[in-house]
């Protein structure tokens, strides 16, 4: 399945958002996720089914002013 992860197109076999994070080795309570411009809470990732060409944003804390 083709997914756009943080702006990069990738071919990944992942049924759910939780599967995707696991496949890409994303791990940590500090991650926030959104799919197609909508927040997906961490507790909803396992049940969130991904579709072809979904746009996934995975953000984490950074320094800021």
């Amino acid at each position, binding site marked *: 399945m083709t997914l756009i992860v943080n702006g990069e197109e990738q071919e990944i076999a992942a049924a759910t958002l939780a599967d995707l994070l696991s496949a890409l080795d994303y*791990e*940590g309570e*500090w*991650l*926030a996720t959104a799919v197609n411009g909508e927040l997906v809470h961490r507790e909803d990732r396992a049940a969130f089914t991904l579709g072809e060409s979904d746009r996934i*944003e*995975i953000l984490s804390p*950074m*320094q800021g002013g």
Partner: protein
Amino acid sequence: MLKLYDTWVESRLLLGTARYPSPAILAEAVRRAKAEIVTVSLRRETAGGKAGGAFFDLVGDLGVRVLPNTAGCHSVREAVLTAKMAREVFRTDWIKLEVIGHHDTLQPDVFGLVDAARILTGEGFQVFPYTTDDLVVAEKLLEAGCKVLMPWCAPIGSAMGPVNPAALKAFRAHFPDVPLIVDAGVGRPSHANTVMELGYDAVLLNTAVAGAGDPATMAEAFALAIEAGRLAHKAVPLEPRDMAVPSTPVIGKAVFA
């Protein structure tokens, strides 16, 4: 003490966490500033999430409250989504709301700012809006539910200091009961001191400390300047006069001629 929404703080210096030479120097600057609030951000994480995790732990070790920002957002939609993602990560309803209108000046898009503020306060956020010194925009932000205002004193990172003191004075006078934090454009402790003398409640800065030759010492200098400005405001400083006024009494002066 200063009340920001439902939180009381002693320190009137809010410190950004970006551009420090090292994490250790950032931590030392926060300590010497006696800051109780630091700003943080969110960015795309590379696979593994290790960089974000290290910073998350560092901030946790600082023992301060975090104020996440929406820096870099140029639309209401981006800013609102970033705010929601920040709440997910940092578990706080606080958000420093930035909706940027210009790439070069980083001037806020005040129309988008008001729209985003209204959406976010409706969803339970406690919004700290980065705005200009425009009084009408500020009124709209208050109507949108903001209980703190953060006018700039000059463009972000410019280090110019208060370029329009008259506007800042009018802003303070117009909103006597709203916590006002000068955010952006401060370059030196004297700038922070000036806005505190004008009656502002606090100052938020980043580059002026992080970009100094000795950030930790500069952080302490800012803290002292802010405290001095606060005391001076409470003491009611003299207004400037056009003509000289002798400080030594002239009554009883000897006449030698």
